[in-house]
């Protein structure tokens, strides 16, 4: 499994920071599609994802790039910027609900039937998973995208979602439960957008 945008872009970033338009173009060519797909998974509609992608790169161009610490992974930093941006969009639209934060600590830890779960996972296709993802609540979807698309650590996810690190596992588990319910055709537990 390869992480999108993991190609070394440090030199291009350094040149872009010095004002080199070609390097800026190189960064966009390399990371633009990956960031669009990130936004596409995290936000309710395709149009939202397009707008968000352009806004993120506009931010970079207008000076955000200067905040990047060159000793760290550029793609990880960029995903973090994208996550914050998408999260802000969801918050502005009231899609991100504060109630979800309260629920985190009270999530029931069920013990599913392992064989049944294993069979269900085996039967589902990628397309069905993508379709089900669109039915999830904003934070559940964002948590899964941060973890399984951007390959972020639990610390980074905690920072991006604004929850304590200890509850990242709970958020992810609850998101999986929502996903399973969506895959089985049941209604999602939390409110969320639809594509």
């Amino acid at each position, binding site marked *: 499994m390869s992480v999108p945008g993991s190609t070394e872009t440090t030199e291009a970033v350094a040149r872009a920071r*010095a*004002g080199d338009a070609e390097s800026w173009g190189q960064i966009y060519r390399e990371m633009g*599609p990956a960031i669009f797909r990130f936004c596409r998974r995290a936000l309710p509609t395709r149009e939202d994802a*397009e707008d968000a992608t*352009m806004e993120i*790169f506009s931010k970079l161009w207008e000076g955000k790039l200067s905040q990047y610490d060159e000793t760290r992974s550029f793609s990880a930093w960029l995903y973090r910027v994208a996550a914050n941006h998408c999260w802000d969009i969801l918050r502005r639209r009231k899609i991100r609900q504060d109630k979800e934060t309260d629920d985190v600590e009270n999530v029931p830890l069920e013990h599913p039937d392992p064989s049944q779960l*294993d069979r269900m996972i085996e039967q589902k296709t990628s397309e069905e998973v*993508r379709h089900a993802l669109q039915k999830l609540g904003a934070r559940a979807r964002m948590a899964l*995208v941060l973890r399984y698309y951007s390959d972020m650590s639990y610390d980074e996810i905690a920072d991006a979602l604004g929850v304590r690190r200890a509850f990242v596992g709970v958020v*992810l588990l609850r998101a999986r439960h929502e996903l399973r319910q969506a895959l089985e055709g049941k209604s999602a537990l939390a409110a969320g957008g639809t594509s």
Partner: protein
Amino acid sequence: MAHGDHLDEMTCLLYAERQLDRARAQAVSAHTENCAECRTLLRALDRESRLLTRAMLEEDEPLPSRIAEFQERARKSFGWIWGVVFGLAATGVYALYTIVVEPAQLRLEQAGFGGTSLLSLLVFQGAFWKGWQSVITLLEVLAMLTVAGFGVAVFRRRLRRGSALALVLAGLCAAMALPTTAGAMEFHKTQGTYELLKDETVKNDLLVTCSRARIDGTVEGDLYLFAQSADISGHIKGDVILFVQSARVTGQVDGNIRAATNNLTITGTVARNVLSLNEVLNLDSAGKVDGSLTSTGESVGIDGKVGRDLMVFGDHTTISGAVGGGVRVKGNNLSIVSTAEVAGPIHYEGENPATVSSGAKLASPVEYTKRVPKSEYTQGHYYLWRVIWTAAFVLLGMVLILLLPKFAEEAVRAGERVGAPLGLGLLVVPAVPIACLIACITVVGIPLGVLTFGLWFLGLFTAEIVVGAVVGNWILGRAADTWGLIGRMAMGFVLVRIAYTPLEHVHVIGFLVGLGILMWGMGAMSLAVYNRLQPKVAMVGAVQPA
């Protein structure tokens, strides 16, 4: 941790994602060795993770055209900004060229300056720094830096910054050196009197620094004189360049005379042209200039013959000799006495009408334009020029920041301290040219002196830019990147200009504010250079040899 006899799903997920501490992970591992159900759950969670990743990474739909076009739009937008900047600069340069440079160049050529190299322009006309001459030199410096910056920007992708800088410096050196006439130069330096005897001949160019010079012999090349007084009665086959308090030319000069003097008297023959900045110039009745004569000074007297045009910027001009071409005079008074003969048209612009004797032989009457003292502020073009110059300086600042982003940042940071750069500027502004002069006088130090003087000279232009950047940083906060610094510099520079313009013509205050800006900026740059020259002890100590 356990759910009945089995592990709960949370624990399994954290184990699968390697989020458990060592002890708990070992306990889970030990349990799953004997528990098939928990092993199945772990496998299911792992498959779920992989399914999620696969589903998200798959490119299920094409990239929207908006996204694909965004980069192109951004690139075009960037090009638009550059287009505006260079368009503005091109307009400024074009306006300067057509309005100022071209006519001035024409006059310079008429005065015999067609083949002057950049080196001689910078070094030997440095003392001529006043009036319209300054415009030409400044434009050359600006144009040179702009072209150099553009060149570096073009080659930047292929060259490291150090190489690019070396290329630019080499190019500048070549530009300075190439047009210079080939040939050796003979140097003489003495505290007292230098004398070239009548039967002596110098085969090369001759450069003399002394208290008093007497040139009775022959110089086959050019003669450069730095002295308190000079008497040239010999034969100079090249040009004569004079930086002399009082000079008298009674001999023959086959080339041009270019002089910065208090008093210059010509009683000999000059085969080509004379250009002189002086207090008093006298072309004696026995004196003859075959070419044109151009002079600025308090008093200019033309008793002898001028073969071609006469151009004077001076307070009092008296013509009693013959002028083969036209006469153009700007000043307070013009007297044309009865013995005068002028073959061409006479244009005179001054405060008082010309006094023309009835016996004077003139090809045409004096064309007089009364000069009315007028405040610059009431003239529209004053503001237009202020805008053009501001744009040109912003462009210069941008080029310099792009060329030397680190140094620019350091200089601006040093400038933020105000007190230290002002103090250092107070020292550097007057001391550096003196040091350069001393270096040049020692002859051996000429390259170092000229180079340092060039940097100092450049610093004079860039001081206000540095101050502008400091002001911009104060207002908008410290810039995080190069373009941020450029934006702050542009804004700050414009603000400084707006604030300074009304003060500029208030004599003492305007002078002090201008001097303060100059010293502040120069001091900031000097401080940045000083900081760079400091040995970095901590770094050296920290790095261990491999």
